[in-house]
């Protein structure tokens, strides 16, 4: 069995590596995107302050304090104190305030935006007696490029896996190559395993190259372990390839395959937080996003790269991705069809 898997794996690798146009596009596109976005959003990425409000519920009551009525400030409910501190530390929140119980605020003294947000808070607080206690949280800022890099790597992985596998399998089916393979002892699960292994290796190489290039030139942030990040990439890639194989399991038209793959990939790209955080989105949208493999990949990758998360910290997302992969692979192998009949 391994010999047959290796035969198809090797042939697919050669086919991909020699298709220079596709290979170049896979490498250049994400690099161009990262540099372009770093340029566009490198300066003033946001035009308002973001303040976290530490409280037990998800609803902010503006009557609690006049500061909450300030215009041009986005107030975000924060229910997890440690999460709030980390965001202030990473400059993802300009300020964290608590009005329930002992009134207190946390600010990063190295954040210019935090300085101005603090001024506004103290001005509002003086009008009601000036009871707010100050606390400091120190940490380096996260630039937009640090934040968006995992998103772009994940997006590139998604497109490469879904289209690189799904589209190719449909083409093989349409031009009769799958029928030719069917006439050999090769089994569907062996063919699928070979496709997964081939794409996994190629995507990991391309992703590593893109990461290395951007990391060396833009000095992007990496607080966690490279091994953990590698695990995230591998598990994420397998889940995406499995999804591509499931979509391509029976389809015989490239047009239909393209439509289905776009239907899956675009909502994932929008709702999984490739470009912007979904923290301000409604619970329904966030719930839907949790069903997408890309969401778990990006959350885990950002946790490792920006917050130094360990394998234990990202275990729930890894388990979810593994389960999704198993479901996709099982369904893909079950419904797999060699020919157009």
């Amino acid at each position, binding site marked *: 069995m391994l010999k*047959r898997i290796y035969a198809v794996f090797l042939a*697919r690798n050669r086919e991909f590596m020699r298709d220079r146009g596709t290979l170049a596009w896979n490498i250049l596109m994400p690099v161009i995107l990262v540099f372009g976005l770093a340029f566009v959003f490198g300066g003033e990425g946001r035009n308002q302050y973001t303040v976290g409000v530490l409280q037990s519920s998800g609803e902010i009551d503006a009557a609690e304090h006049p500061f909450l009525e300030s215009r041009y400030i986005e107030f975000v409910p924060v229910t997890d104190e440690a999460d709030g501190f980390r965001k202030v530390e990473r400059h993802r929140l300009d300020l964290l305030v608590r009005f329930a119980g002992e009134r207190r605020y946390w600010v990063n003294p190295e954040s210019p935006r935090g300085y101005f947000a603090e001024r506004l808070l103290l001005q509002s607080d003086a009008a009601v007696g000036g009871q707010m206690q100050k606390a400091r949280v120190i940490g380096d800022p996260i630039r937009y490029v640090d934040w968006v890099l995992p998103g772009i790597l994940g997006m590139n992985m998604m497109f490469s896996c879904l289209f690189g596998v799904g589209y190719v399998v449909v083409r093989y089916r349409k031009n009769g190559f799958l029928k030719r393979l069917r006439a050999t*002892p090769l089994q569907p699960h062996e063919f699928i395993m070979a496709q997964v292994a081939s794409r996994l290796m190629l995507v990991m190489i391309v992703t590593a190259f893109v990461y290395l290039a951007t990391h060396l030139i833009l000095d992007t942030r990496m607080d966690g372990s490279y091994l953990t990040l590698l695990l995230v990439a591998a598990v994420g890639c397998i889940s995406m390839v499995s999804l591509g194989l499931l979509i391509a399991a029976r389809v015989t038209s490239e047009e239909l395959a393209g439509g289905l793959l776009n239907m899956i990939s675009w909502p994932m790209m929008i709702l999984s937080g490739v470009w912007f955080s979904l923290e301000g989105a409604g619970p329904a949208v966030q719930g839907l996003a949790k069903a997408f493999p890309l969401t778990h990949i990006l959350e885990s990758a950002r946790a490792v790269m920006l917050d130094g998360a360990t394998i234990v910290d990202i275990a729930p997302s890894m388990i979810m991705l593994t389960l999704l992969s198993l479901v996709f692979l099982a369904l893909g192998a079950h419904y797999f069809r060699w020919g157009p009949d």
Partner: protein
Amino acid sequence: MPLATLWLQKLRLDVGWLPTDPSDNLTSFAGRTPMQIALEARNLVKQYPGVVAVNDVSFTVAEGVCFGLLGPNGAGKTTTVEIIEGVTPATSGEVYYFGEVAGRRFREEAGIQFQDTALQDYLTVRETLEMFQRLYDRQADLDRIIADCSLGDLLDRDNRKLSGGQRQRLFLAVALVNEPRLVFLDEPTTGLDPQARRNFWTLVQRIQANGTTIILTTHYMDEAHVLCDEIAIMDTGKIITSGPPDELLRNRYDGLVIELPLEDLAGNLDGIEHAVYENQGIVEIMSTDVSKSLEVLAPRVANLNRIKIRQPNLEDLFLDLTGHSLRS
């Protein structure tokens, strides 16, 4: 000696590719040990909405034999062999390989050349052969296959840059990488020029000489006559006759065919007692006594130089059995 007899002798020399002794093919098998049944198709049916593509087809193929499935385009040949190959599911019927239901062993031991297939882009001829060989436990000597199929000069060439004849040779080589006991060749010479077709025939004969069983589908009757020990003629999804080609012809015909252009016929054919067909502007007369027929014809034919006399062939048989031409 009458003129017609001289013509006849000359024409017999011209058709030298046909076995001079019809029993030659049969005697070549006579010395072998009793042959096993390599393949049996039993009551195969394939229905599509509104069409019965294969209608209760049954036949057996003995080991070492080249068996031809003949018929015009759309007769159901390819569907029949694809059911046997296991790539198209039958509506009903069974396929047995050396007495067992065709399954894993069949896939391991069969080599298949499809009529229409694709290979992976960007792979060279050598890489393609190596890839397919790894899919099998049975291994042929790749160097021998490369030599047999004359692919030695093409090994580093991209699959996409092969000519039609080179691609057919590669497809055949792919079908041989597992040292198959049974090879399917589906319309292997369609689209090839006459020289490439002849070369391909030589290649197939070499494979058969090794004792490999061959199942050939073709709509070229001359190809079937040269290569096949036994044939089955299909039309509209059914087998209409089967047996060794020369035996079929011998049983059906007792005489020769006189051909003349319809436009050269000045009078009617009264007095010609045998079957007469008109096919694409050519009148064909089946005659058991050519001299007598030519005597009757002579005064009615404008140009005697355009008369041809030949042995009946499989195309005549097909026309006779179905009432329509193979190319229609």
